[in-house]
């Protein structure tokens, strides 16, 4: 009990918001460091891959892995840390569902190559040089780079995951709860929670949302945030604006709503939902007003009406594309 446990903060294809989320515990970090030895955490410590490889299996008690799995290094780190850790946590929306990097499933590797290394406005590359997974320089020096996968995956698609924590990034309130879970576990005060999704409600964001909820939501028109004056008290859906509340777990303290912007679903779907985007599509299309002259409206006009959501794929699957039913874009 007085023995410190080892904690790792491993990175996949990440923005490091997960690292900063832990750092943002600020003064609470002092409590954390009383019971925890921060080991492999590339943002903050100097432990290298070779040091992790030299550890015993299970030597690390908890590994918080943030970031999606999108290249061979991400997968290698996931597997290595899984081996050396007792408890593996998919920390943050990317590790949990794919996150924003998961949006890369809308495109292909070749398209990306062309865009980045030739097409962008500042790139000057007449020789069509491309980064290579294996390269030998004119002096004979060998260099390697990780290989890209075709698909972006969530962490539990490549290793067994014990706990999943959503949100982008996990909020300070969630992290303080997580800290308490760790402290209680190390001090023998409470067992760890059952495996699965933690620090999230089983209910949707609407349950937690501070806005006035109308009896019924019926809208005339679909609107977008750029041209609309946003009412700070009315439900966003009531204002005609897509908000992912109805399909998304609560537990994030509705931070986006509180700054007067709609939810985009980073806490992931509730357990009752098979497909995050499909579920929201169903809900959103149901709130449009059905007029008395509905039968006279031809299909084409209905289609034009629905096209006001200009990018269903990117909006409905903002954080969860790799975990959607269809997972990625294909070609006929």
């Amino acid at each position, binding site marked *: 009990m007085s023995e410190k446990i080892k904690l790792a903060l491993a990175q996949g294809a990440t923005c490091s918001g997960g690292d900063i989320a832990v750092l943002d515990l600020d003064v609470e970090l002092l409590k954390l460091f009383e019971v925890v030895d921060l080991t492999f955490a590339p943002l903050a410590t100097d432990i290298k891959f070779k040091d992790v490889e030299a550890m015993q299996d299970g030597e690390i008690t908890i590994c918080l892995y943030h970031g999606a799995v999108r290249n061979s290094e991400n997968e290698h780190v996931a597997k290595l840390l899984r081996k050396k850790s007792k408890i593996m946590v998919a920390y943050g929306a990317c590790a949990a569902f794919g996150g924003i990097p998961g949006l890369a499933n809308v495109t292909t590797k070749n398209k990306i190559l062309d865009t980045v290394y030739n097409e962008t406005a500042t790139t000057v590359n007449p020789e069509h040089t491309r980064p290579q997974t294996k390269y030998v320089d004119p002096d004979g020096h060998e260099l390697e780079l990780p290989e890209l996968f075709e698909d972006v995956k969530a962490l539990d*698609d490549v290793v067994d995951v014990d706990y999943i924590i959503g949100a982008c990034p996990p909020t300070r309130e969630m992290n303080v709860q997580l800290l308490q879970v760790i402290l209680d576990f190390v001090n023998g005060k409470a067992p760890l929670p059952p495996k699965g999704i933690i620090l999230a409600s089983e209910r949707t964001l609407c349950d937690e949302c501070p806005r006035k909820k109308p009896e019924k939501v019926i809208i005339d028109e679909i609107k977008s945030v750029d041209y609309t004056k946003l009412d700070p008290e009315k439900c966003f859906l009531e204002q005609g604006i897509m908000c992912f509340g109805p399909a998304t777990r609560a537990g994030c303290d509705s931070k986006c709503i509180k700054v007067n912007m709609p939810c985009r679903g980073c806490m992931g779907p509730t357990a009752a939902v098979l497909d995050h985007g499909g579920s929201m599509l*169903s809900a959103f299309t149901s709130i449009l007003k059905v007029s008395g002259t509905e039968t006279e409206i031809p299909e084409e006009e209905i*289609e034009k009406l*629905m096209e006001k959501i200009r990018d269903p*794929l990117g909006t409905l699957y903002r954080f969860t594309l790799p*975990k959607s039913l269809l997972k990625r874009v294909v*070609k006929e």
Partner: protein
Amino acid sequence: MRDTFKPKIVVFCCNWCAYAGGDLAGISRYQIKPYFRVIRTMCSARVDPEWIMEAFRLGADGVMVAGCHPGDCHYIGGNYRTRRRVAMLRSLLKQFGLHSERLGLAWISAGEAEKFAKTMNSFIDRITELGPSPYRRKKANNETTGAKKETVDV
């Protein structure tokens, strides 16, 4: 390859109109190509977009939603929602890379046996023309797909 391709098509029929129409088509001995399976729901509005995507994920080449004519829904306004849902779902599926005609929408009343037969046959022909769904090919390449859910909420 195209000559031997037999499409897998799922047709969601609402109980009161489309399914009855399908029943009548069967009794009336209309010849319909056998490459579709029917799933009956009480209303076309009960068809969850998630199910349609699950059908494509599992390898369906085409999915059809068939319900009552607008204005004749047994539950008054159900098929109005169906229309909107299918419209947005079509845009979404198009972005996913599926040909927009792989998702069909038809209004077939209980007495329209011939319409049922004609609609099914022309949908099957069209899907046959389009060929196997790209998700079918993809499924053959990957081992694990789909969401991990313990229970299915129906």
